[in-house]
């Protein structure tokens, strides 16, 4: 069974590439344009991995991460945070809030893919 991945990012231009990349690799891909939608989709669709952008409308990535980690049912969901800020403090905040990995834009698609595989245990 193919793994299910949710891309939560309001930047359409990056979503296009990541979505294309992951589908090509055989993953099932879902997309959410803001924090609230991301949270709802995680609860409804139970993806294996969430690619979570920090800066999103309605609810930012940190809050989403925190909400997910507060729900014991979703403990198995892996979270990979994506950020356009890349300050060290932010990275440690994300990891502190329970993210499993952290990538700073701009990243190479190969690295992203490797990280995704690693988190999914593939």
């Amino acid at each position, binding site marked *: 069974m193919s793994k299910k991945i949710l891309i939560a990012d309001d930047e359409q*231009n*990056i979503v296009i*590439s990541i979505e294309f990349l992951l589908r*090509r690799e055989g993953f099932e891909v879902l997309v959410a344009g803001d924090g609230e939608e991301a949270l709802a989709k995680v609860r409804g669709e139970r993806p294996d991995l969430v690619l979570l952008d920090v800066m999103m409308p309605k609810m930012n990535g940190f809050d989403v991460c925190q909400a997910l980690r507060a729900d014991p049912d979703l403990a198995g969901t892996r979270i990979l945070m994506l950020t356009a800020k890349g300050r060290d403090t932010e990275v440690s905040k994300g990891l502190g809030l329970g993210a499993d990995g952290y990538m700073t*834009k*701009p990243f190479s*698609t*190969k690295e992203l893919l490797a990280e995704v595989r690693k988190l999914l245990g593939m």
Partner: protein
Amino acid sequence: MKASHKRVLAAAAVCLLVLGLVVATAALMLAGEADAGGNGRSTEERMVALGALVLAACALSCWGVYRLDALYAGAPLRMAEELKATLAHSGLRLAEQGASELRLLAQAANQLLDVREARENDVAERIREARASLEEERSRLAALMADLSQSVVVCNLDGRVLLYNQRAKQELSAGPDGRNAELLGLGRSIYTVFDRALIGHALERLQQASSEGAAVDSPKLVGSTQFVTATPAGRLLRAHMSPVLGGDGPHHAQVGGLSVTGFVLVLEDVTSSNERHARRDALIQSLIEGGRGPLGSLRAAGEMLSDVPDMAVEQRDRFLHVIRDEANALSAQFEKAASAFSNDLRERWLLEEILGGELLAVAARGIGERRASERRALAVKTENVDEDVWLRVDTFGLLQALRYLALRLQDEYQVREVRLSLMRSGHLAQFDLSWLGTFMNNETAMSWLQDPMTTASESSPLSVSDVIERCNGDIWFQRERVSHRAFFRTMLPAAAAPKDLPRAIIAAAEGERPEFYDFDLFNWSAASHELDDRPLAELSYTVFDTETTGLQPSQGDEIIQIGATRIVNRRLLRHECFDQLINSRCRLSPQSIEVHGITRELLVGQPTIDIVLPKFQAFCADTVLVGHNAAFDMRFLQLKEEQTGVRFDQPVLDTLLLSAILHPNQTAHRLEAIAERLGVSVFGRHTALGDAVVTGEVFLKMLPLLAEMGIKTLRQAREASQRTYLARLKY
């Protein structure tokens, strides 16, 4: 025994002796007579002869005593008196009188006095010299301090201000509304301006540094510390604090007999440079962080396009669109940052804001003057000057460049007149140096711009181009064949008018050195004395007076002017005064206008009492209030307590009552009458400040007189005042 008694006794003793001799003679004569038996003179005759003899002998001996007395007793006494007089007047000498032995003594004493006078003159001369040099140093110090672009404040350990400069006064005296609130003054507490905890912490660090130095067995009192703080007016200051060392500081903190007795604060206004740094940081931050998103999208799309050769056309178009889109977004962001940054670029050169018109005027004068002195006139005209253009340039360099070009034109092309113009062109300023007729070729012009600026009188390693580049501008040579004009055109970025122009230093009046320092305050310690038991001479006072709409505070009359000045260490500080008109809705009675001359028009636009009183309270902080008939003014202030929430609960002294203590038999205790009695000249009466100054001078004259009466402390003065007041009430 007194000298006169001795004389009387001596005379009496001599008389008795003579009498004894005469009696003995008489007895012998009588005995002889008896032996001779009746062949002599009658008894009466003998008695007369004896009486005459007695009288003559007495007179002779008295005269003798008198002479001896004059020689050996009177002369030494007179000499003693003269010698005493020389204690006060070293120019006096002893008269050589009396016996020759005494004359010798007088000569010796006079020699001693000569030596003493010479010594005294010598000492006086040295003191005069020392004073003169001290005075000179003080003037130099005052001038130096006045010229500093930083604020300097020196305080003792209690935070009392001993010295400050003009800049400090301007920077630190502004209240929260930016207006002058006289927060800084001699003997005032620095804590009205800065947070006590902040200064305390810095002081602790200084003392720490000192004692740490002691701990490692290298007695060193070192250390200066820095902090950044904000003034009440919201300016950001970087403070550099260093200790003042002395031998009489707190014992426990002494190192090698020295300890911190006070501190020097050097303050620099970093508001604008801080803003600039913050702006630059924000810019860089936005460039870095704002760039990550678009770059991430670009990179991902690019990698997809190159990694997946067999992509569907539709999909490929989507990626291409992403690339175009993000590249545009990135470009726009880049442009924005670049234009924002250009103003801050090359900050390391001392670029300063200057009004373009002003720069032109200075340049025109500079070029014209130089040549006038060499008797070869080069006319300089300014035309088309846009008066509103501000530039941010290296003024000195730019003026040098203009002068250099103009002089070369004159020297090498015999140009007689140059014109300067300045116009705005979008966000740039266009600045032309033009002349008529003579053309040079482009190569020559280029070399002029690239050569180091060297003329007969001065040389610079920089070229004109260098200077213009520093100012973030560009310069080129151009000509217009139609108008027969050629010009060097400079384009410079126009600057925004600066928000905080450097405030001009207010120069002190001629011959009058402002009282900005008083090192005697070093020995002050507010904590060690209860205010009441401190000597009057040691206290700080705020002498104040008010003008009012009328004489009935309870019926709604109000204060319309407060004037005050300060007394610190028995000096009236005329430079630290408070002078404020107060807008009041109350009607001004014609009688009151006659007294103070303040009309309704003068009060329009002035602050109201609820704004003025807190400022006045700050001005009075830590001082004793002094007023003439202060009860009257205090009544007005008290009636405003509820409305303004400002309470004046410091001690108050009243010169009216003090005058009654000093001269209980006088009936007139008006300010003029007292001033006249105490020899204070009165001017500027019936302005609040004028009256306050007169009251202050009167008060200062009263202090020694009160001390003579045994009234030396504040408590004594208050108690004595109370007694007179009560006495007057009973009366």
